[in-house]
């Protein structure tokens, strides 16, 4: 059961991750076209930056704890300089 469910979440989650990193960690939007092909490293770097800021395990991957943190209600001011 969980595996299939996760598959569907993955698509939804990548949107959450990208939007979060664009809003708060200065992930450039114009990179979006190759985010899915070649820009993953850039996104992974931003993800590491966010994980480090929140004291999460720095994996560069949108793991469970990271997604939970991204879903928390929060202030709209970015965490890093835009």
């Amino acid at each position, binding site marked *: 059961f969980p595996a299939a469910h996760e598959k569907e979440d993955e698509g939804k989650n990548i949107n959450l991750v990208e939007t979060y990193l664009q*809003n*708060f960690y200065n992930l450039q939007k114009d990179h979006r076209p190759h985010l899915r092909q070649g820009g993953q490293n850039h996104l992974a770097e931003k993800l590491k930056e966010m994980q480090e*800021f*929140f*004291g999460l*395990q720095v994996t560069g991957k949108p793991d469970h704890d990271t997604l939970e*943190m991204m879903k*928390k*209600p*929060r*202030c*709209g*001011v970015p*965490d890093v*300089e835009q």
Partner: protein
Amino acid sequence: YVFTPGNPKWKKNNLTYRIVNYTSKMRRTDVDEAIQKALNVWSSVTPLTFQKIEDNIADIMISFAYRDHKDNSPFDGPNGLLAHAFQPGEGIGGDVHLDEEETWTKDGTGYNLFIVVAHELGHSLGLSHSNDPGALMYPTYAYTDPKEFLLPQDDIDGIQAIYGQSNDAVQPTGPTTPQVCDPNLTFDAITTLRGEMMFFKGRYMLRKHPERSETELNFISLFWPNLPSGIQAAYENIERDEVLLFKEDKYWVIRGYDIAYGYPKPIYRLGFPKTVKRVNAAYSDETTGKTYFFVADRYWRYDENKKSMDHGYPRKIIYDFGKIGRVDAAFQKDGYVYFFHKTTQFQFDPRAKRIVSQMKSISWFNC
């Protein structure tokens, strides 16, 4: 704490604010009070003053807005983004915008307006987000009872680095966030909870799952918004799947995320004499059904089946448990009882009736 890049700050200490409009979710007087209290969080630790004006342009304009409200940072409806604010400066500088589609409240339901405005005002004064999870300037929302709110030390240090100290003779200080591997860490109370361990400290709870190496730090209010901070004793009744939490002369019964109906109740209904004002520590022996309460240098024994205190108590702790001093916290795990006294932890074998080992208080955290 982190300064806003470029270190913007107000060039004057006497600032003005104006509440441009009001949310429909709260009474106007409650909104006024919440904002006044939020401003006082910062004015009480700096030379800053805030004067309310009713019209014209104030330094800090506070307003509730919907979705796209023409500042290139649209809101997103309920939850998610709650509010934002602008760094010190002319025009939009210093202004606070709150998402009108949130459920603003003055208690622990929805989003507490005081807490959110106090955070945003930190931005209005030149602070950015802090990565201290206990700081007011931490980016995610965390409820604290406004009546118990104390500006954390991280935020005091940050705002005073910008504007200097308050003019009060006595400088205010704030709570610090517990660091799990701090050798000086002591605990208010400890209990097991469905196989995990909960260490209570101030308004925090350190949560340790036996299968995970890292320890989670959460606010008590994250799980139980109606519980106070500063829990003084706790124990788990495994058979009933309940945790009992004690503070001063009251106790609560917790079942998972729920606080049992009708609590808190006075501790005297458990059989304590009126001379007992608070309980320091407690643990429950699952095999015997007996619960041990530690108060100052004595302890009581409670029979969970008879629901009454055993006769012949209180007794002196030193008589039956040895030289463990005053007990700050205690819990039982795998047949052993662990007593915490300041930064020392004693492992007691109830079968041999003696202390079998002594460790540091933070021994459970894989430091």
